[in-house]
């Protein structure tokens, strides 16, 4: 009756990235990128992103001098969250949290297909004069993906290379 240690929500461990998580990553419009500043001070930004199935990684585009890029140069461990909001009930909330290593990729050598996909996803809003010159792509390779739908959690971990 007097339960001191709460019963945790059950977490499934999966070998593959769950299909629902992938569908959220394909559908989602905003990603929230968390980087760490020196002294373990978290920094958060809302970003446009695109999920690339082939390399199993997330691509984002940012400006060279922005805070997140500066942070990533120092500490590559980042966290990206994409979720679907349900204002009615938390049972309908689902989302994906990806923790992994970020890599800065110069625009010239970034995967053209992915960048085209990025532009076509957000072209409607970025406008024709989107300056690609001062930009830099961020590629995040997931090491750990947690996915939740209501109170159901599942966790995927990358195999150690």
């Amino acid at each position, binding site marked *: 009756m007097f339960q001191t240690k709460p019963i*945790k929500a059950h977490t499934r461990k999966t070998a593959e990235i769950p299909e629902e998580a992938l569908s959220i990553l394909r559908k989602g419009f905003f990603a929230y990128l968390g980087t*760490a500043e020196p002294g373990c001070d978290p920094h*958060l930004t809302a970003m446009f992103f695109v999920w690339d199935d082939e390399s199993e990684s997330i691509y984002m585009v940012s400006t060279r001098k922005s805070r997140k890029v500066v942070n990533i140069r120092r500490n590559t*461990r980042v966290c990206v969250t994409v979720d679907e909001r349900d*204002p009615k009930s938390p049972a309908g909330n689902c989302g994906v949290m990806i923790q992994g290593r970020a890599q800065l990729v110069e625009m010239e050598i970034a995967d053209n297909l992915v960048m085209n996909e990025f532009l076509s996803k957000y072209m409607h*809003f970025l406008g024709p004069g989107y300056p690609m010159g001062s930009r830099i792509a961020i590629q995040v390779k997931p090491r750990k993906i947690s996915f939740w739908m209501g109170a159901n959690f599942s966790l995927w971990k990358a195999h150690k290379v």
Partner: protein
Amino acid sequence: MQSYKIMTVVSEVPKRKQRKWIYEEIVDKIPPFRWLPPTWDVVAQLFLVEAVGIFASIYFQMPFEAVIIGSLIIGYTVIWSAGCLYVIPSMRRLRNPTNEQELRVLQEYKDDLLLNRFNELAVGSLCFIGVIAYAFWDPAFLQHFLGPGFGNPLLFVLVLVLAWDVSYRMGLSFVTTLFAARRSIALSYAARRRRGLEYTAYSEVRTLRFLDSVNLYWGATAVVLIPVATHSPLLLMGLLAYLAVILGLSVISFLAMETVPWFPPDVESILHNEKFSYVGLCSKGQSHVTPVIFVYDGKYIYVGISVASAKYRIVKKNPKVSILVDMRDPINPMRNRAVMIRGKAMVLGEISPLGIIRMYIYGLWMLRVRSLFSKKYPRYMKYYDREQDLPLAWQNKAFISRVMVRIKPERITYWREAKPRTLRV
């Protein structure tokens, strides 16, 4: 209007010569004080005046009571002067609000305190005349203290100087408290008419509140004078009335300052209206981002989390938190706005010795925050309350499975159309 443009702001242009308080001016000119650091000025003042007083009491063979009473009066002036050490530096530290109307209010307040001597002199003189008139009307009062020396012109001058010193200080602290109350009311009026990103940073509001507390300290030091006035009901009544007025004005000022919002209206509207936020944590260099529900009570941001979650584990180790709230524009996502607030987190509602102490201190406020939660997220709260097949960690068993995290804002970043802008807190 014209005058504000000509007179520049205190903190920006060091026209210190013009903007000195009378106390500083006197201390700067008289030799023994000029050479001493400000803290020692006060001590030196105490010893000097006290020595004169004791010498006079021995010379004129005053009763012992008079020595104590005189020391109390000197004590009053010295304790009062100690307050000056804090006022001027914090006044210079004040930085400008971005709201023009609030800027004008603060400007006027500074000018009244630092430039305009007329008010304090007027009130001080009124006090002085009152005291002197009373001494002439009821000579027995002075005679009681002064003993055989009563009637000596030298002693009379000494008493006059002391009376002026006390009256001037009382007048000055009355005037400063009055100005503070007027400034607080004007500021809260102006603050409620802010637009866009105009605001007064909270550090400024805190400085102003500190100034108010010094005013209250000055007013309250008059308590020291109560034993002096016990012999005459009239003086006692006057003193008590004075204390009551100071206390009332301070309370008014405090309440008015409480209504000044902490953030500019653009930020406040996002925090009040948006339902989803993302909380970022960091453990061992790895950040952790999760969506949470939150409420904003005008000062702090509260987040409800479960004790079984990773968030709870991380926040216990590293209380540095950043929370991002964004407002999505349904038509064009480039016009989204977002606020990121960074600060220290405090966990409320735990069952642990520290948690229970905190619950005792913040208990009522936690109930209020809980009601804010159920007002903002009625369906969520119902779900957490009623749904029985949820894991226990998710259920809304207050104090067992869910805790509240209070985030104290330290830095704010505001994005509009993908352009960040940092605001001071």
